[in-house]
């Protein structure tokens, strides 16, 4: 256990670790740099000059605002839907025993294990079979399939760590089902729901594959970016948007990580 005792890693390992991290994160920095380049036809390195004008150009592009608005609305509603359905499902699976419980649990998690393209094709054929026109709501449904999983996973883990006798104790002290949910269940699973909700929001916000199959003429932000890349006009606008997307998705994920980090003890079962 030499390396544990003096805390020194061999030089080669350090270089490899640094190289790995750079490989992961340098391209993201490049995206940021290109957002400020003066050259708008192609990505030229090094940038011939730096400018802030693309921020203003982006601000004044209505198509950006439209796509952003749609993405935020889709993500918000998918997340809300997922919070309700995921929590209910987690409560059922972890609180009661019923025939087929394990199967239900597996089926709920399946959409996230399934490749997005399969989910997309499946939903698309289902929508056309049922004669449902593509709309805002078909995008939301598509996103909800994987948002529910994220919320469910977080909630089920917290339910398992929350002692079941807490609910009985609350009932015993006079609280009905609703009061128990409000005063005991929600405070105990609150941070898990917040974390699950934020992850779900972030996932929905940058989803491309399922969206391409379930959206009609509407363009969410990631799809807008994809379309913009093939069009050589005001290219840095895409990079400005990319920075915004990174901020909007990264911050919730970071927050979710910090919120669930300390939740390791089993609530209510300590002696």
């Amino acid at each position, binding site marked *: 256990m030499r390396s544990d005792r003096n805390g020194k890693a061999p030089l080669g390992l350090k270089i490899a670790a640094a190289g790995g991290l750079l490989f992961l994160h340098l391209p993201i920095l490049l995206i940021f740099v290109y957002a400020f380049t003066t050259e708008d036809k192609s990505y030229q390195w090094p940038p011939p000059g730096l400018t802030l004008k693309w921020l203003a150009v982006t601000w004044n592009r209505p198509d950006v605002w439209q796509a952003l608005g749609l993405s935020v609305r889709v993500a918000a509603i998918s997340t809300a839907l997922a919070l309700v359905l995921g929590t209910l499902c987690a409560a059922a699976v972890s609180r009661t025993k019923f025939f087929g419980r394990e199967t239900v649990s597996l089926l709920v998690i399946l959409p996230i294990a399934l490749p997005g393209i399969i989910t997309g094709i499946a939903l698309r054929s289902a929508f056309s079979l049922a004669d449902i026109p593509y709309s805002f709501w078909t995008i939301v449904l598509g996103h909800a399939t994987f948002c529910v999983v994220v919320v469910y996973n977080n909630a089920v883990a917290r339910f398992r760590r929350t002692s079941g006798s807490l609910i*009985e*104790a609350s009932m*015993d*002290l006079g609280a*009905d089902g609703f009061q128990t949910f409000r005063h005991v269940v929600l405070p105990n699973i609150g941070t898990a729901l917040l974390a699950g909700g934020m992850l779900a929001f972030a996932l929905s916000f940058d989803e491309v594959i399922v969206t391409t199959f379930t959206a009609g003429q509407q363009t969410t932000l990631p799809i807008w970016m994809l379309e913009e890349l093939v069009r050589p006009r005001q290219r840095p606008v895409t990079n400005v948007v990319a920075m915004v997307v990174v901020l909007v998705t990264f911050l919730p994920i970071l927050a979710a990580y910090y919120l669930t980090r300390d939740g390791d003890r089993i609530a209510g079962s300590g*002696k």
Partner: protein
Amino acid sequence: MQTAVAFSQVSRHFGPVRAVDGVDLKIAEGEFFAMLGPSGSGKTTCLRLIAGFEQPTAGHIEIFGETAEGVPPYRRNVNTVFQDYALFPHLSVADNVAYGPMIRGVAKAERMKAAEEALALVQLPGYGARQPGQLSGGQRQRVALARALVNKPKVLLLDEPLGALDLKLREQMQEELKTLQRSLGITFVFVTHDQGEALSMADRVAVFNEGKIMQVGAPEEIYRAPRSRFVADFVGSSNILPPETVERFAGKRAWASLRPESIRLATAGGHAATVLGHSYLGAATRLSVDMDGQRLTLLLPAGATVPATGSQAAIEWNGDDLHLMEDGQ
């Protein structure tokens, strides 16, 4: 005196498992009632039937004369001290204790006062601001007790509340619970698998086995006159004699129980036995002997001369102490 809890032919089956099987039971108001039995004997299920967490498969339950079936736990004037205490981890000690009054809509100042009084009652005055996680096991136990008592229940249910405490603390809590019960006059129903605890605390004990009540009675009665082999064996330790042996001494064919402390070494006469071994217990010495193929255990008081292993000894007992049992089970 009014009946606090009455079971008539109550059963609770979980699939093929008969957790509670045709139980008849009457618990009087103000009584300290213990349900004693090995794990899986149905005692905890009986407690949960009173609390309302379980509904009977068959039979009828009354709590203070009112039908209990179908009444949810939150509408019963009964409170429970849970085995794992079940304190709410997100609430302070005071908010835990004030939870019941808060749900009933008692104003904040008033319920905090009630909580403080309840905490004083369980010897934890001034602990309200702490979090449950900062308390020791014994303190959590007291908070759980205060949280139940603050609601002034008609029946307090205790589900093996002392199981997680160490021996010294357990003995202290036994005393305190008993004192508390006497001063409050509340009916206590106490579930335990510890026969010593049941005997020392309860006014009456019900001995459970396999979902049935084997015997109900005062601790002395249960100990002195067990009705069945199971009770004789589970409550204290006993020498259980088969009918063939009993016939020789009592002139009647029946199973009998003979407590080890009832047997003594005879000074004259007595029955011949071979000493098989002994172990020193401090206050007494336990001797095992063989009497015509029947193994017996006896307790010799401290200071008595202990016969050597392998030697012959004469033993005797009072005829009354050989307790004939009606039930060979």
